[in-house]
C-alpha cells in the first residue's frame, strides 16, 4: 500500500469522525454480531424446545479445560492491546514482541480446542450421534442417555465457527507481524494494528458469551 493510499485510509469519514478502514472493520464486526447471534439464538431456542437433548454443565464438556482456554484468550487480548500501546509510543520492538505473544497464545487456544474435540469425539460425542451416553471422566454414574443429536450439532457448529475465526485471526496476526518486522508501522501509521486488534478483541468477546451459554448454563 502506498503512503498516499494509507493516508487516504486514515482520513476520517465525513460525519463519522472515524477513519475509513476502522469504520469498515466495525461494519464487518456488526455483521459478525448478527451471524453469531443467529447461531446462539438457534441454540437457545433448540435448548428450550428440546431440554432432554442437552445436559447439565460439566457432565459432557470439560469445563476446567475450557475455563483455562478462556483465560488464554483473555491473555491474548491484553497482549494485543499492549502491542497497540507499544506502537502508539513508536516502540517497534515492543510491537513485535507483543504481537508474537498474541500469535502464540492464539495458536495455543486453537490447539487446546483441537485437543478438546479429539477427546470428545473419542468418547463418542459427535454431531451425528442419535443419543450420546457420556462415559469416562465426566460421567458421574453409568447408564442414562445424557445428550442427543442436537447437543453435538449445536456445540460443534458454534465452537467450530468460533475456532475458525480464531484460526483466521492467528493467520492475520502473522501477516501483521510480518509487516511489523519490515517496519511498516509507526506512531503515525498504526491503522493496521488497530484494525487487527478490533477483530481479535471481537473474537475474545464472542468467546466470553459462548463459554457462558454453551459450557456453564
Amino acid at each position, binding site marked *: 500500500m502506498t503512503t498516499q493510499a494509507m493516508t487516504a485510509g486514515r482520513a476520517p469519514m465525513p460525519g463519522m469522525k472515524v477513519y475509513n478502514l476502522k469504520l469498515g472493520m*466495525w461494519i464487518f464486526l456488526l455483521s459478525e454480531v448478527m451471524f453469531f447471534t443467529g447461531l446462539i439464538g438457534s441454540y437457545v431456542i433448540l435448548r428450550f424446545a428440546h431440554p432432554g437433548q442437552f445436559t447439565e454443565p460439566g457432565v459432557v464438556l470439560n469445563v476446567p479445560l475450557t475455563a483455562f482456554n478462556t483465560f488464554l484468550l483473555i491473555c491474548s487480548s491484553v497482549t494485543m492491546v499492549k502491542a497497540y500501546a507499544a506502537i502508539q509510543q513508536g516502540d517497534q520492538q515492543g510491537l513485535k514482541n507483543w504481537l508474537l505473544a498474541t500469535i502464540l497464545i492464539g495458536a495455543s487456544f486453537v490447539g487446546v480446542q483441537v485437543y478438546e474435540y479429539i477427546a470428545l469425539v473419542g468418547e463418542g460425542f459427535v454431531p451425528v450421534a442419535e443419543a450420546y451416553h457420556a462415559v469416562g471422566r465426566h460421567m458421574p454414574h453409568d447408564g442414562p442417555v445424557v445428550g442427543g443429536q442436537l447437543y453435538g450439532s449445536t456445540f460443534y457448529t458454534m465452537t467450530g465457527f468460533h475456532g475458525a475465526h480464531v484460526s483466521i485471526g492467528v493467520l492475520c496476526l502473522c501477516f501483521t507481524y510480518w509487516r511489523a518486522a519490515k517496519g511498516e508501522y509507526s506512531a503515525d501509521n498504526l491503522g493496521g494494528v488497530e484494525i487487527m486488534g478490533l477483530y481479535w478483541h471481537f473474537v475474545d468477546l464472542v468467546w466470553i458469551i459462548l463459554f457462558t451459554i454453551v459450557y456453564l448454563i
Partner: protein
Amino acid sequence: MSTGEAHKPPPYMLVWLGLFLLTMAEVGYAFITAIPKLWLAIGLIVMAFYKAWLVAVYYMHLKWEPKRLWLMVSVPIPLIMILIFVVLNEIF
C-alpha cells in the same frame, strides 16, 4: 487512538484482572447447586455481558470513540432482542 484526542492510558491490566476474576467467579457460580436454575442462568449471563462490555469499552476503545460510532454499534442489540424473544414466544 480513535479520534486523535489525548486521554489517560486505559487500565489494560486492571481490566485483564477483572476479566480473569469474573471468569473464575462464573465457573464457581455455575456449579452452586443450591441456587435455582433460572437465577443461575441470569447471574451467569449478567457476568458474561459485563465481561463483554469491558472488552468492548476498554480493549476495543469504544470509550474514546465518537457517539455516532456508539449508535452504530448499538444497532444489533434490538435486533438480537427481537430474534431471541419473538422466536421464544413461539415455543411458550
